[in-house]
Structure formats: structure tokens, C-alpha cells
């Protein structure tokens, strides 16, 4: 295949662009692609870093949603109330402005996180001791409740009663903690 831009050199780069559900294919040689500025994702010069790659990755996102969503919704600019970062700005720099951004852009963020962290989107590591106090308790309680179900299913009522008592104790503690925090 010959480059569709210069009609001289062989086309080595094949792009498929999807804009609003419309597919456009282009076949270019390296030189023409560079001139057209479509090489940014592929360039490996000194300026190429994880940030470029990330920005590229994030940029794909709106294309998917635009076609699926109500076109009127696009008019609304998604912006963080805390630091006034817009989603477009985030895509450009690949950095959030503050902790609330994670809440503001929650819906857009989940697929991105999954892509970055090979399918994972929920934390299963360390919980800070002080501010994470009740999270610890709640995780514990969820585990106990699951155990309780298992024991009832297995008809091990003695163990189930013990678990029930433990859960009640934790519930009391949780309530006390929450009142103390208010």
C-alpha cells in the first residue's frame, strides 16, 4: 500500500479514527504522519514519557462515550468544585488537582483505573490507622457476617451464636465511634 498523502513512499502506519461513531481510516508513511502530527503516540524521542502515554490513554475515553450518550449532555462541563479542574484539563496533564477530583470524576475514572492497573479498581492494601478507624471495623464486620451466613448454612449454631455476639459488640463500637466523631 502506498501512502495516501504523498503517493510515493509505502504506507507504514495505519490509523483508524472513530469520531462520533464515524470511522475514518488513513494510511500514511512515517514522514507524512509526522508532518500531520499523528505520530505523537508513537514517537519515542526524549520528550516521550509515561505522561504522554497516559494522556493518550485518557483521550480515547470521550470517543467511546460521545457516541453512546445523549449529545446534549456533552455541553455540561464536568468540573471539580473544590479546585475547579475540568475533566478536559485532567486529560491534558494527567494529574488531578485535589482529593475531591476523585469523587467528581468517579464515573469517568473507573474504566481508566482498570486500564492502568490491569483490571483492578478497588484498593485492598493498607488502611491508615487513625482516619481509617471505622473502615477497619466495617471490614471486620463484613467478614464476620459472611462467616455467620456460612455457619448457619452448615447448621453450626453454636459457632453462629458466638459470631452474632461478636457482630453485636462491633456494632456497638461502631456506633460509639461515629457519635464520638460528630
Amino acid at each position, binding site marked *: 500500500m502506498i501512502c495516501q498523502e504523498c503517493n510515493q513512499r509505502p504506507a507504514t502506519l495505519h490509523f483508524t479514527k472513530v469520531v462520533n461513531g464515524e470511522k475514518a481510516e488513513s494510511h500514511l508513511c512515517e514522514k507524512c504522519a509526522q508532518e500531520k502530527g499523528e505520530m505523537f503516540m508513537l514517537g519515542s524521542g526524549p520528550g516521550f514519557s509515561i505522561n504522554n502515554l497516559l494522556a493518550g490513554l485518557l483521550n480515547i475515553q470521550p470517543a467511546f462515550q460521545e457516541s453512546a450518550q445523549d449529545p446534549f449532555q456533552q455541553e455540561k462541563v464536568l468540573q471539580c468544585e473544590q479546585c475547579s479542574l475540568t475533566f478536559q484539563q485532567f486529560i491534558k496533564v494527567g494529574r488531578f488537582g485535589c482529593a475531591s477530583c476523585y469523587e467528581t470524576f468517579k464515573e469517568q475514572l473507573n474504566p481508566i483505573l482498570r486500564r492502568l492497573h490491569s483490571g483492578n479498581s*478497588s484498593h485492598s492494601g493498607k488502611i491508615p490507622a487513625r*482516619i481509617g478507624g471505622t473502615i477497619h471495623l466495617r471490614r471486620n464486620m463484613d467478614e464476620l457476617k459472611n462467616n455467620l451466613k456460612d455457619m448457619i448454612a452448615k447448621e453450626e449454631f453454636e459457632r453462629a451464636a458466638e459470631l452474632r455476639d461478636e457482630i453485636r459488640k462491633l456494632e456497638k463500637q461502631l456506633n460509639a465511634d461515629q457519635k464520638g466523631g460528630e
Partner: protein
Amino acid sequence: MSLERFMNQAISSWMSAEGPDSDIVLSSRIRLARNIKQYKFPTLFSNEEAEAVIEKIKARVEHSSFSKMGQMELLLMDNLQPLQKRVLMEKHLISPHLAENSTYGACLLSENEEVSIMINEEDHIRIQCLFPGFQLSEALSMANEIDDWLEEDADFAFDENIGFLTSCPTNVGTGLRASVMMHLPGLILTQQMNRIIPAINQLGLVVRGIYGEGSEALGNIFQVSNQITLGKSEEDIVEDLKSVVSQLISQERSAREALAKTSNIQLEDRVFRSYGILSNSRIIESKEAAQCLSDVRLGIDMQYIKNISKNILNELMILTQPGFLQQYAGGPLRPHERDIRRASLIRERLKMEDQELGG
């Protein structure tokens, strides 16, 4: 300044200590990224917020010191000369980003330089622990203790579902980057590295050159680190990295054994030629120096060379970086002058080895 005195100042104590598997793993590093909830992240924060972050850490240090870190020193980037920052960077104590692009960037250093806490880098707080040899778990538990100590006094940005919130979504969750610096000349000489790197990438780990992102693997030194920070616990991330590193260690050892068997004399020749260049050259570029140092270190590990101390590679790789050379010279040097300085510094350092043996 004499070279010996300069080295004593230049080399962090961890660099000269020997750790487990230190014939192949030069150092292990753990980094935790944390942010303080009430302030905007460094990309958008105001100068007042930046100062408040520093004040917060300062207050923490003044009220309750963390005994394992010993005497701590707070270095404000704005108060440092460009050359001083460069030297800290070459010692891996601060990042290029902190040195050049941070507003109110600072760094809290422990006495032995094993711990450095970067303030107002990409995140408000980046706890970094650097240990000699293969000691990832040890470094992780140190970093965890420092994290707990800082958390006593600061509300970290944390979400129940996605963990610690960081400026860049590539760090969210644990905020943990675990990495090891490995010397892998055997795998390079037997041309196995090109096959190994893609395999490691598939496991969610990254292989880079000695000075991180985008840098070349100077002197056959590679940095292997985790890419994924979300969904796995800190311990699992470290265990996964450890198991890959252990495999790399055994591959490197068998490559060295194979080399000794199949091309003993060629290898010995290569080692001693490089030793000859290092001890005689008058002008040497950093790339050539790194390659020769790698050969000599391999020669020491494989016992072709018996009278030189092992940490010469770690030491000279850092001492022959442009920043250090200029600090040693006491002023800025042009690239050509640096190459001359580098050659003489290496010659002098090798002479010190001879004297130690004689005395």
C-alpha cells in the same frame, strides 16, 4: 579537598554497606505517595498551601522525632544551589522533578540518608527508603512505620474504595512503588536481556535504566519496579517483585557460570582491558566509564580481580556523574573538562585501593 574526605561526604552510609545478594542487587527502594486531605495537590495548590504542607511536616519533626531516622535535616529546594540539587539527585535522594519544577519543594533526610521524605513533589509527601542489597521487605516495613508516624498528625487523602489518593492516577491505591537496582552484565553478554524484558513487562513490572524513566541502562544496571498500585496489598506487590527479582538473580548467576565455562579467557581479557582503561585513561566519557566499571565489578564478583573492594561500582557510578565531578572540582566544568576530571578521579580512587592493600 582530598578524594577520601570528599567521598566520605559524598557517599551515603548505605552505599558502602553490603546487603543480601549484593553481588547482583545493588539497592532496594520503597516509595509511598501520600497527600494531605485539606490541601490541593501540588499541580494546583497555592503558595500558601505549599508552605502549609512544609510547616506541617516541620511541626511533626519538632514535636516527636522518629527515632529510627536519627537526626533529620530539612532541605528547602529554594535554598540550594543548582549543583547541590544535582548531587542529591545523582544520589537518588531527590527526583529531577523536585529539584527543577517544584514550588516550595523540600526534602527531609535521615542521618544515614537511608530515608528521604520528599515534600511537595508530584504529591505532598513521598516517603522513600533506600536499602543496600536485596531488602525490599525491610525497606517496606521501614516506610510503613514512617507512614504511621506521619499519619498520627495529618489527615491523608484516602478513599475507602480506591485507597490513598494521589495526584496521578497511576499511583492511586497503595501509592507504592517498589524497585530494585540490579547489575546484570551476564544476561547482557549472553544476549538474554531482550528476551527477558518483555516477559517481565507482561507481569505488570517495568524495567528501566539507572536514573529512572527514559534513562539508558548505563553500566548494565537496570531498575525493576512495579507498575500496578491498585488492587493488590503492599505485601503482595513486594512479594511479586521479589519473586521476579529472585528469578533474575538465578538467571544472572547461571549466565555468569556459563560464561566462565565457555569463554573464560575472553571474559578475563575483557575484565582486565577495562581495568587497564580505568587505571590509565586521561579522558573518559561517562558511557565508557560505566561500561568499564561494570566489567571490573563483574571481574571482582567472578574473582578474576581479587584486590579491589566490591562497592567500587556503586561508588564510582555515582561519583563520576556530572554533578559530583563539578562539586569535587569546586565549580562548573564543560563536558570536555568533565571527561578529564572523571578519568583522574577514577585513577585516584583505584590508587587508594592499592594503598589500602599495601598498608
